[in-house]
């Protein structure tokens, strides 16, 4: 591991954005991930702007448990609600929670990691101590306990998930910053009399952006999984808000008579996570200078 943290961050910044994009599009997995995530993003936007074929909450008792058809692409559920619209709204909800959670974790985690690695001393001791404590809990269990303590709403779920992922961002940024502060151009900047804060933002932060970008993508996939697990266990956003996890929970007794009620949210959540994982892998390969020129 030490060779990655030692040389990669300095070299990563040298690649131009265009070349990185070209590499990403060149890798088959990165491209596939981009397409899947792009399609799901369109679905989220459709849900957000009310462009879905049906209201995801509207119940039509006369149309209970109808199989997929031209009118209802993914069929209907036990209350006659349109499964496609509910899946789309569920994806939008879990994307919102995952985005807010990961944004919070990225900002707090990266800043703490950079400050700890750059200043060392007391800030480092505090940040590392907190990181160790948070890492002592199994992730899902920590999210579960936090979610049970907080009031139930989509925002508190996002906060619970964010707290779980903050230490990951601290750990992936602190190491590279530790080695960056020993690199000549950072020392040179110090000797020209620039303030520590200026050096941190101008010379250190830009050098760890690639690491952070990859981590954001992978964390998004975990956040989606965590949110779905929480709502499956009944600790997600309260009903009737559509959520992929609670849809699968409700479908477990219907699966014999109406398999589409489980298949639709199940397949979509796997696609969502596969897409984010592929994108993360593709980004990691294209941002890693050791892979440059090999593909």
């Amino acid at each position, binding site marked *: 591991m030490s060779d990655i943290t030692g040389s990669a961050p300095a070299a990563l910044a040298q690649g131009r954005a265009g070349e990185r994009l070209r590499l990403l599009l060149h890798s088959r997995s990165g491209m596939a991930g981009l397409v899947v995530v792009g399609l799901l993003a369109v679905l989220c936007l459709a849900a957000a702007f009310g462009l879905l074929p049906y209201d995801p909450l509207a119940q039509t008792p006369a149309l209970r448990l109808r199989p997929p058809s031209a009118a209802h692409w993914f069929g209907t559920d036990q209350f006659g609600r349109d499964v496609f619209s509910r899946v789309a709204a569920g994806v939008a909800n879990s994307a919102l929670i995952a985005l807010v959670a990961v944004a919070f974790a990225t900002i707090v985690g990266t800043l703490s990691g950079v400050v700890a690695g750059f200043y060392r001393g007391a800030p480092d001791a505090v940040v590392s101590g*907190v990181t160790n404590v948070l890492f002592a*809990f*199994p992730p899902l*269990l920590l999210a*579960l306990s936090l979610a049970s303590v907080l009031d139930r709403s989509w925002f508190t779920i996002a906060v619970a998930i964010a707290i779980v992922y903050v230490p990951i961002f601290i750990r992936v940024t602190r190491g590279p910053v530790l080695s960056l502060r020993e690199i000549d151009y950072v020392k040179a900047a110090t000797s020209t009399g620039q303030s520590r804060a200026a050096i941190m933002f101008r010379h250190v932060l830009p050098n760890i952006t690639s690491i952070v970008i990859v981590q954001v993508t992978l964390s998004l996939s975990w956040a989606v999984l965590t949110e779905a*697990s929480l709502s499956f266990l009944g600790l997600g956003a309260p009903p009737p808000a559509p959520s992929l996890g609670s849809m*699968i*929970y409700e479908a477990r007794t219907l699966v*014999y008579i109406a398999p589409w009620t489980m298949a639709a949210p199940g397949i979509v959540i796997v696609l969502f996570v596969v897409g984010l994982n592929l994108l993360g892998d593709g980004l990691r390969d294209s941002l890693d200078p050791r892979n440059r020129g090999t593909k």
Partner: protein
Amino acid sequence: MTAVRAIAAHPILRRVLSALGTLFGVAVFVFVMLRAIPGNQITAGLGTEAAALTPSQRAALEAYYGLDKPLVVQFFSWLGNIFTGNLGFSSRAQVSVVDLTAQSLPVTLELAVFSIVLALLIGIPLGMLSASKPDSPRDAFGQTVGLLGLSIPAFLLATALLAILSATIRFNPNGEAFAHLTENPLLNLQQMLLPSLVLGFGIAAPIMRTTRTAVLEVRGNDFIRTARAKGVGPRRLQFRHVLGNALVPIVTMTGLQFGYLLGGAVVVEQIFSLPGIGRQVLLGIQQKEYAVVQSTVLLIALAFVIVNLLTDLLYRIIDPRVRAE
């Protein structure tokens, strides 16, 4: 002073001390988290009836539970109780948390052992298969299985497996009351099969990826070429020289998966009705028995810290370079 310095300089002792510090932080965190919940033992015990208490009754109850003391005092008396083996009492089950955990912990440990064994049996051969010919169809197969393992949520796989198997071949051993390994081993093993398969599949994915990367990296080393040149057979080369040297990252990754395992146990134990420690937490949360949640979460974190410590120490045995440091 020299004694302190000697302890601080010893890598294993230093690691143990830092683990103890982390555990203290964990205790503070769990205590603060549970205190953040609106209400206390009184409202949790009496529910809405707590509103009918007169001020003097309330004060008496607060004194009884020690809630009138400063938070710091409450924390240390709680911590003192834990050290003397008093982890609280479940008023619903009418047993102490220690007794509850003595029942549930073996179930989760059994599940954990089976899951890790299955994960290693799936992950390592799959990783070696992928690494044996990079960018070939068999590599694509291994990588696809790995990606699915990372992406299929445990609750989905568990629910789908349960539904499909019980509908098609009427296989649903988890529909019966849970049998302990010592009572009815045959039924117990059947009941453990699907849950450990689900958890094992999830852990197999990162193990497979790590094995693939590590094997590819080790294979490029000069000493492998040397071993081949001096006539080491392909099988011995593959297992003794390549896998033996790739073992450090694989062990690390397996240790790291313990956290996933305990989190996943909550979901899987719930779906397959296994009375393990994960279910104990979830039931505690659902029934608002915070004494149970607090102590159980603390015990799980304790187990997690110890496993991480052991993984660290295990390196020193496997990797002579770390031992020498």
